[in-house]
């Protein structure tokens, strides 16, 4: 032991000396000379004697990449010193990291001295990579699930075990674990395609199950359940679930799961973040086609903060989270300081933004739509809406007004006999000419038929219509919205949401006083409620649409998108090339985009678990659905970069399922540490951190430029090196998929993986093709191809990567993968960390250059004609106020829990994955329970007291994460005027019991925990568990996991 220490001391001394020599030697070149020049004429002074100046910065000191400390994905430059990442700065080329960003064609050497902006988490990303608790070898469970006992196991052996299955865990009593090989049951893409058609026929009652079984009698053993063909093949019993996954890696992984393995179960984490925003956005963007509504994008809108004059930040902690800091904050602070921008914050918590805002409206959690309805009522009654915009019924009318978008507020909707609104009336129903996509408005009292995308015949309609035509009772979409808003008076709405009606009116007046340069920007505070979908339709949707600010400078923007990394016309590579691509078939286990009524397991209301006809990627449904085997049992779960137990509200409700090998027979995690969810894994495969790997972070709505930032290896991975398809690489998620593909001989990977257009044997074979596609540029005719890196830049590129092992960087292999003619262009892109539009390219006149440019739905036919699978009721087709309810429509039971609990983001933490960042926890070592002084007084609590957090569902105030193991929910109280009375808030990111916060036993050795990583409280286990589902509360329409509708009690610890 002492020998080791001595040796390491000697080595360290040598290293330090070497560093000194390097610095001194290079310092003598320029720095010394400059200093002498700088103080020329001054009397010589002692302090200058023998001074050392660091080596001047060069392009080769940096690797340009993309942050992943949160999902903003800022462009970064990573400074490498002696092979170690020592400093992360903002990349001045990048639109997120510098406002305005420098010209993309600036030579790399010229940018070396210039640093952009990056937030504290981004700076601390170094510590996510250099984390002493990283897993670097494959771990296999040695105890019960969650017990924290592991053995290291060779990679190849682990791959064999999960591929072939067997009695893998003696401690489980000889239970046989299924392997992936037996789930790779159906292989022929043609059979998949044929089954898809026939399953649709069964759902539409055009084929019986018996007929299906007869037709596929040779494949029945490949089905999960021949009596329920709509479950699809056994392939679907392999479930891939992920937390944070961006393009590139997503394309690679889904190629494995869907295209090659044929599973329909690939589910993201969208709903834990802001699902109901995405799916309300999808509903707003659906377009009529063949009598149905299709093509809606899982996307949403945000504010153009560069130009906005008035912004309502609604449930959006914009200075600390929601794609904020480096990207948005400079635009906001500049706008405020120059008096261009006036802001309102609607939030139960006085956010940092509120500290700089005109008004802080401390709304009651979950009552957002009440405030929106009050504003909508005032705006319509006072005719403060953009009449000219709203009257446009189709593209021709919009174009005539110079409007890029138009709404369906003037379109006529049929009313049901019970007074509820159904679908749009079609022209043919009123005896007018047209097809299933010909709609009707009323103009000067007469019905006029039109098509939405008609560019020839401009049609404008009356806005507020309630009439009967040919015996059909119709109303305009805007009329239906108006009637929803008239359910209560403005004063009554204000009372519902706990605000002063005069404040709401003042905000509504200001909102309608800036033309198109006013905007409502929302985030999780609006969406993560049981009524999230309709809150979003009311705020982001209806309010913005009423002032017609879409695609306008300072209004609501859709984002500039990304370059087509995966291919497209003219681009050098089509990443979809595949020798035998499968399109998976059958219901997925979360019932996303599926109709309960059409399924073979319809048995009345409520359904066993909700169906989500308007949503997908419902994170909180994956594991609970496996637990309920609904609609069918699963066999193997792969979890990538996700920690649902920690991240989900009421994540503790997932633990019984994860702990039970009968419900999830094989559970494999890809993780960088043993986290709160990988704690239950049968195998943990170490993954690469964001500084070691490839990914294409793309964009989000608030980025008005077209952007394709690249995440690329910047430092060597500590993970063990493995060999797959004859290639050496560090263990990673890619290595796992490649290795399984090699064992199962899956098409689409290995030799000929790109169907005659190359091999796919290692990650770079995939990712460098994507970089080449970025280099190709925006123009399908090749006029936007980027230049070659010159000799100087080629040399800097190679020099910057000298520290990377051959398993991660091999210039010749990279050149081959990129393709000879593309190699220098690929380097050009990588030397800048990606590619994007120049600064001024984002706007064109008074509008954004990249436009949404289509119909935006104010009325939602697809929703209005779908049923709630739990109540059997039709969904509302328009923004509306809905009270907080559980999945089957009941009021929540908060007996004995007086405080409404919400969570928030601190700039110093990002949910489950920053507790390893000691630079951050050294600033804020624990989080707090923020309470209004009046509540504290009532509860007998004062500043710095410790308090237990509990609820009717969790009276023990504890995370009981394994038999005999628990983490108490005890947090420190901080009283503040900056919160609505009756509400308690805590910051997400602390209160860990894994991730280095509890002892783990590996190969019999105890790895002791670090108390700094166990600090604070994570009170999600006090959140509401839905009585019917026995899992987290859910917005059964928009899919959001519900964070903000729980009530808790606190008592002094």
């Amino acid at each position: 032991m002492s020998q080791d220490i001595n040796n390491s001391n000697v080595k360290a001394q040598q290293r330090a000396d070497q560093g000194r020599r390097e610095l001194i030697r290079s310092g003598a070149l320029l720095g010394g000379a400059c200093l002498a020049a700088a103080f020329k004429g001054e009397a010589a002074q002692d302090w200058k004697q023998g001074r050392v100046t660091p080596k001047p910065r060069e392009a080769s000191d940096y690797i340009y990449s993309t942050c992943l400390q949160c999902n903003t994905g800022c462009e970064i430059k990573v400074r490498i010193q002696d092979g170690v990442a020592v400093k992360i700065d903002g990349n001045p080329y990048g639109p997120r990291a510098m406002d305005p960003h420098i010209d993309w064609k600036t030579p790399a050497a010229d940018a070396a001295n210039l640093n952009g902006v990056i937030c504290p988490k981004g700076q601390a990303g170094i510590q996510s990579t250099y984390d002493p608790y990283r897993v670097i070898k494959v771990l296999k469970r040695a105890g019960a699930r969650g017990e924290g006992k592991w053995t290291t196991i060779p990679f190849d052996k682990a791959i064999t075990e999960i591929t072939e299955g067997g009695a893998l865990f003696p401690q489980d009593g000889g239970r046989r674990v299924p392997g992936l090989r037996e789930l790779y049951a159906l292989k022929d893409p043609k059979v998949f395609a044929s089954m898809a058609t026939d399953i649709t026929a069964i759902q539409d009652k055009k084929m019986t199950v018996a007929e299906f079984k007869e037709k596929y009698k040779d494949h029945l053993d490949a089905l999960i359940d021949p009596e329920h063909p709509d479950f699809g093949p056994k392939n679907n019993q392999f479930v891939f679930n992920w937390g944070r996954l961006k393009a590139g890696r997503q394309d690679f992984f889904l190629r494995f799961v869907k295209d090659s393995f044929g599973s329909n179960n690939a589910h993201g984490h969208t709903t834990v973040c802001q699902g109901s925003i995405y799916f309300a956005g999808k509903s707003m963007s659906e377009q009529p086609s063949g009598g149905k509504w299709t093509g809606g994008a899982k996307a949403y809108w945000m504010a153009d903060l560069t130009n906005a004059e008035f912004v309502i930040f609604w449930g959006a902690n914009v200075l600390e989270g929601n794609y904020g800091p480096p990207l948005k904050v400079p635009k906001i602070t500049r706008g405020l300081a120059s008096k261009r921008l006036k802001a309102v914050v609607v939030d139960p918590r006085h956010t940092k933004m509120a500290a700089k805002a005109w008004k802080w409206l401390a709304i009651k959690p979950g009552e957002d739509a009440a405030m929106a309805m009050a504003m909508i009522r005032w705006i319509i009654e006072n005719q403060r809406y953009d009449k000219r915009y709203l009257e446009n019924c189709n593209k021709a009318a919009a174009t005539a007004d110079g409007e890029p978008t138009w709404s369906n507020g003037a379109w006529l909707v049929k009313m049901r006999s019970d007074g509820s609104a159904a679908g749009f009336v079609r022209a043919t129903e009123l005896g007018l000419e047209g097809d299933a996509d010909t709609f009707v408005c009323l103009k000067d009292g007469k019905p006029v038929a039109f098509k939405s995308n008609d560019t020839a015949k401009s049609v404008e309609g009356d806005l507020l219509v309630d009439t009967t035509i040919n015996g059909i009772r119709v109303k305009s979409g805007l009329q239906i919205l108006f009637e929803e808003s008239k359910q209560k008076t403005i004063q009554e709405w204000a009372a519902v949401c706990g605000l002063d009606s005069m404040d709401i009116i003042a905000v509504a007046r200001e909102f309608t006083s800036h033309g198109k340069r006013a905007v409502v920007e929302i985030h999780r505070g609006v969406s993560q409620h049981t009524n999230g979908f309709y809150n979003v339709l009311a705020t982001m949707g209806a309010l913005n649409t009423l002032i017609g600010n879409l695609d306008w400078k300072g209004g609501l923007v859709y984002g500039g998108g990304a370059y087509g990394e995966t291919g497209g016309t003219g681009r050098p590579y089509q990443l979809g090339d595949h020798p035998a691509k499968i399109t998976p078939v059958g219901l997925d286990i979360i019932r996303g985009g599926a109709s309960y009524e059409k399924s073979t397991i319809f048995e009345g209301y409520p359904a066993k678990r909700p169906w989500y006809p308007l949503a997908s990627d419902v994170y909180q449904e994956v594991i609970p659905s496996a637990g309920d085997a609904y609609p069918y049992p699963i066999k193997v779960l792969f979890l990538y970069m996700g920690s649902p137990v920690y991240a989900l509200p009421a994540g503790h409700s997932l633990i019984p399922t994860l702990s039970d090998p009968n419900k999830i027979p094989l559970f494999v995690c890809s993780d960088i540490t043993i986290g709160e969810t990988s704690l239950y894994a049968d195998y943990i495969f170490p993954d690469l951190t964001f500084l070691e790997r490839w990914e294409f972070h793309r964009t989000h709505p608030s980025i008005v430029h077209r952007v394709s930032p690249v995440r690329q290896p910047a430092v060597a991975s500590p993970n063990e090196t493995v060999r797959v398809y004859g290639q050496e690489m560090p263990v990673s998620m890619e290595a796992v998929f490649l290795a399984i593909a090699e064992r199962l001989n899956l098409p689409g990977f290995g030799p000929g993986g790109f169907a005659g257009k190359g091999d796919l044997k290692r990650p770079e074979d995939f990712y460098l093709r994507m970089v080449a596609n970025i280099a190709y540029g925006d123009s399908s005719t090749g006029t936007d191809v980027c230049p070659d890196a010159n000799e100087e830049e080629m040399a800097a590129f190679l020099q910057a990567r000298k520290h990377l092992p051959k398993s991660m960087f091999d210039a010749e292999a990279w050149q081959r993968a990129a393709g000879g003619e593309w190699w220098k262009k690929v380097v050009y892109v990588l030397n800048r960390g990606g590619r994007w539009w120049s600064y001024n390219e984002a706007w064109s006149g008074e509008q954004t250059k990249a436009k949404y440019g289509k119909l935006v739905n104010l009325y939602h036919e697809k929703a209005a004609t779908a049923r709630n699978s739990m109540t059997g009721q039709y969904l509302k087709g328009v923004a509306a106020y809905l009270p907080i309810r559980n999945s089957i429509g009941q009021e929540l039971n908060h007996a004995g829990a007086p405080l409404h609990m919400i969570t928030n983001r601190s700039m110093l933490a990002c949910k489950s994955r920053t507790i390893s960042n000691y630079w951050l926890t050294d600033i804020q070592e624990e989080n707090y329970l923020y309470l209004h002084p009046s509540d504290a007084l009532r509860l007998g609590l004062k500043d710095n007291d410790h308090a237990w957090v509990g609820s009717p569902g969790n009276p023990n105030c504890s995370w009981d994460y394994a038999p005999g193991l628990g983490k108490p929910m005890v947090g420190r109280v901080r009283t503040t005027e900056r919160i609505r009375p009756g509400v308690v808030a805590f910051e997400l990111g602390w209160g860990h019991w894994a991730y280095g916060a509890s002892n783990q036993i590996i190969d019999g050795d105890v790895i002791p925990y670090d108390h700094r990583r166990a600090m604070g409280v994570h009170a999600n286990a006090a959140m509401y568990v839905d009585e019917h589902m026995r899992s987290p509360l859910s917005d059964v329409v928009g899919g959001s996991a519900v964070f903000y509708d729980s009530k808790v009690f606190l008592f002094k610890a």
Partner: protein
Amino acid sequence: MAETIDKTKIPPKDSGRRRFFHALASLGSGAVTGLVGMKMLESKKAEAAELPAVLAEPSGRLVARMQQELEQTIASGRTPSWLMVVDTRKCIGCDACTVACRAENPTGPGGNFRRVIQKEHGPSVGAWAVFKPVNCLQCENAPCAKAVPAGMIWKRPDGIVEFDHKKLKGSYASAAAQACPLKLITIDDGKTFTESTPSQQPYELRAFVENGEVHSRKPGANDLKDSARKCTFCSHLLDIGVLPACVSTCVGGAMYFGDANNPSSLVQEITQGRRVFRGHTDMGLTPRVIYFEEPMPDAAHIDCSVCHY
């Protein structure tokens, strides 16, 4: 004092600095000193015209301008007088500067050169908050220098206060730290963040330059152990033409840095004839970190009560 920038003194090719001007050219009008101030973002707003127009410029443009000024100052051979100006209206209390400082100037747990003070409300006035970043003021007549024997703390001609790390140890370090009215001197206890974890991590062991010397915080070989340390305006970066870490990384665009001797510098442009807040002038200090103080309609302002409450 009234010097102007002599563009003929831009260093020759391959200095690594000349090239930066090309990068600046792409930033458009506001990037070039002489043009700043001519263009208002919202010229129609009369009240905005009361402020220095340059404050309506995007923060990236200001950082680029400061970068350009820095390189010109070094190239000119003149002795600068460094000045840091903080626009607290734009500070969002995010601590990006705090962490950037630690990454650039390695310290152990608790070893801050810079921190951001957050002050909240009192019950009578409702909810508000202000944020005030602080670091060594680089005082003239620095109290720390008076508290220790001569020669241990000195002032560079450019105004930066420097420590002799070899001498300023132990009781001398404590005396200096005690003397600082803002308590902005830290004593390096030699600890690293990962020394008591399963493995000491390499980024904490790197060689770095502070006050013109190479140091390493390798446990057992940390020559800064027990030494007093503090903000140096990142003098090691200034020497090679790079802005201090807290300035370029500032998310809110609240940090300005430049040469007070240069009448056309950004720091002069925004502070000339304007209200600025200088702390501790009552103690005879003339801080080189000052706070820009102009009204912003909807935000509270800093004053003495931010620190003294």
